[in-house]
């Protein structure tokens, strides 16, 4: 009845066939740039061993801390390893951490949130109290505490980063479930006596998945950032495995050789930016689709 609704529908005139989410994401500049960089980053990580111009691990004391040249476009480090090659290989480590940690946190968090939101009552109160308490810890602090217990390693970094993001997904999913429960179509299938698994899988999950998907992109960027910070502090990926955060840390001890910390840091920056752009694009695409 209100004219504002009317205006909104006027603003985007054609709502003909449902176009796929992907094409809507790629229709925005955020989606194209973010998606492009994330694809590039993924390919680089997958094919890293075959595309590095030099060996990322070979020590060469004849060319220690060389300024960027054609031979070494990003320069070399304190033991003469090619920084470009190490940045390329570092993408592999980062991708592994990002994918594994985000999967852990999204699956576990969404499951917890779904149960808490649907069951309600004391289960909800108890679970969410623990989640809220975990949320009081800053990401990096909780990750550090978990690392302190488990010891620094790649696997432990994945576990720590995976665990710290669980409450975010749980809260998000719980909120979605609570909203959906107020909608008439969920009430309708409840009153029809449809089986619980079918209600959850067919009606609740598909309609709650959108925000979770958007948040996965943001969680991926946070996972990357947390891994880099842990490695920077020397408590994440351990040398000699190359990691962008660790490389910046080494570079920090050699301020005057700027390229040692500049390029790995730039790699983190661009990749995190790409995930954020992609997240924005997916969110906008979903908003438009659901309106």
């Amino acid at each position, binding site marked *: 009845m*209100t004219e504002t609704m*009317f*205006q909104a529908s*006027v*603003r985007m*005139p054609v709502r003909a066939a449902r176009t796929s989410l992907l094409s809507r994401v790629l229709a925005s500049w955020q989606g194209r740039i973010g998606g492009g960089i994330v694809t590039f980053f993924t390919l680089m990580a997958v094919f890293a061993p075959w595309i590095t111009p030099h060996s990322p691990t070979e020590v060469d004391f004849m060319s220690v801390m060389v300024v960027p040249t054609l031979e070494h476009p990003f320069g070399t480090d304190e033991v003469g390893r090619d920084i470009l090659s190490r940045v390329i290989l570092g993408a592999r480590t980062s991708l592994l951490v990002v994918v594994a940690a985000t999967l852990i946190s999204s699956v576990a968090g969404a499951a917890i949130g779904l149960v808490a939101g649907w069951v309600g009552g004391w289960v909800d109160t108890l679970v969410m109290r623990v989640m809220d308490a975990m949320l009081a810890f800053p990401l990096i602090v909780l990750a550090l505490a978990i690392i302190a217990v488990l010891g620094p390693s790649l696997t432990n970094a994945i576990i720590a980063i995976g665990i710290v993001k669980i409450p975010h997904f749980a809260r998000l999913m719980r909120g979605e479930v609570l909203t959906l429960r107020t909608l008439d179509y969920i009430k309708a299938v409840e009153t029809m006596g449809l089986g619980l698994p079918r209600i959850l899988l067919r009606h609740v999950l598909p309609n709650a998945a959108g925000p979770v998907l958007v948040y996965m992109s943001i969680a991926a960027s946070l996972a990357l950032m947390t891994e880099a910070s842990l490695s920077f502090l020397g408590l994440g990926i351990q040398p000699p495995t190359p990691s962008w955060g660790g490389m910046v840390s080494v570079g920090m001890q050699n301020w005057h050789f700027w390229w040692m910390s500049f390029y790995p840091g730039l790699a983190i920056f661009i990749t995190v930016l790409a995930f954020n752009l992609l997240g924005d694009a997916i969110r906008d695409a979903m908003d438009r689709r659901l309106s």
Partner: protein
Amino acid sequence: MNSMMAMATDNRAVPLTDGPATSSPLLGVEDLGIAFGATKVVEGLRFSVDPGRTLAIVGESGSGKSITSLAVMGLLGSSASVSGRALFRRRDGEVVDLLRLSPGRSRALRGDEIAMVFQEPMTALNPVLRIGDQLVEVLRNHGRPTRGAARARALEMLRTVGIPDPESRLHAYPHELSGGMRQRVMIAMALMLEPGLLIADEPTTALDVTIQAQILLLLRRLQKSLGMALVFITHDLGIVGQIADDVAVMYSGRVVEAGPARAVLATPNHPYTRGLLGSAPQVDASGTPLPLKPIPGIVPSPVFPPAGCRFHPRCGEAKAGLCDRTEPVLEPTGSARGVSCLRWKEIAS
């Protein structure tokens, strides 16, 4: 109330029909068009209101009635392109075109000479400001009242709109009041400076029916005592019969029928007006409900409007080759009435 009915039947020239208005009305809208991009949501609209009269604009969602009121108020965003004229006679006699005013002059009129009451009393008041402050702000926007004078005026208006215990309400927040009370506050706020024109956009739609009756009565009493012109926008023909002197029926961005409210409701000329009356729950003199005669089909989208007469796909009287080709214009039918239908004469006979 009988006086209102009497007024509605006298043969005033309602300048909805062709030709220039004889006596200059308070507000005269001519050939108003509103478009968002290529989508024309309102076209060729004309109506006028005199001081002391109530014009009801009636239509379903998407008819463009609310957007018209926003255009007259100068509250449409920059995404809309507006054409035509809306001539308003100011207190000092100057006639201005509301659609061509500078933002500053438009603002100077709003709240002072033209005021508006909106549909949703729950969201139309600012939730974080006290009622008193929101009332007083109207005075501060249009002058420099002393604290005491402003407060006194706010109190007086709260009393006028029938709010019990007005002193304590001045310090209340909107969420502490019921829907009906909030709508009374909205009316008090609109009338702080005794505007010549009040536009009420579905002011009772969100309210319960017993409260709706109270608000209608209040609006009617205030309108008579202040002698202002009232434009009342509604989707409910029942309300038109209760409050309006004149009525303009809108469909898909156009006026399809206009004239004195009682005459239009008694003998509608346009098939759409008939359909609306047939859709509205009504009883005969003995209290038995009259059978419903719904209009088939759905309201057309303004993006893909039908060719010819916009109502023809739903119209039982539509003639192929005529109504789907030629677009009708609002033509006079005598006794201050107008209709926009190619076949109204044939239908009438």
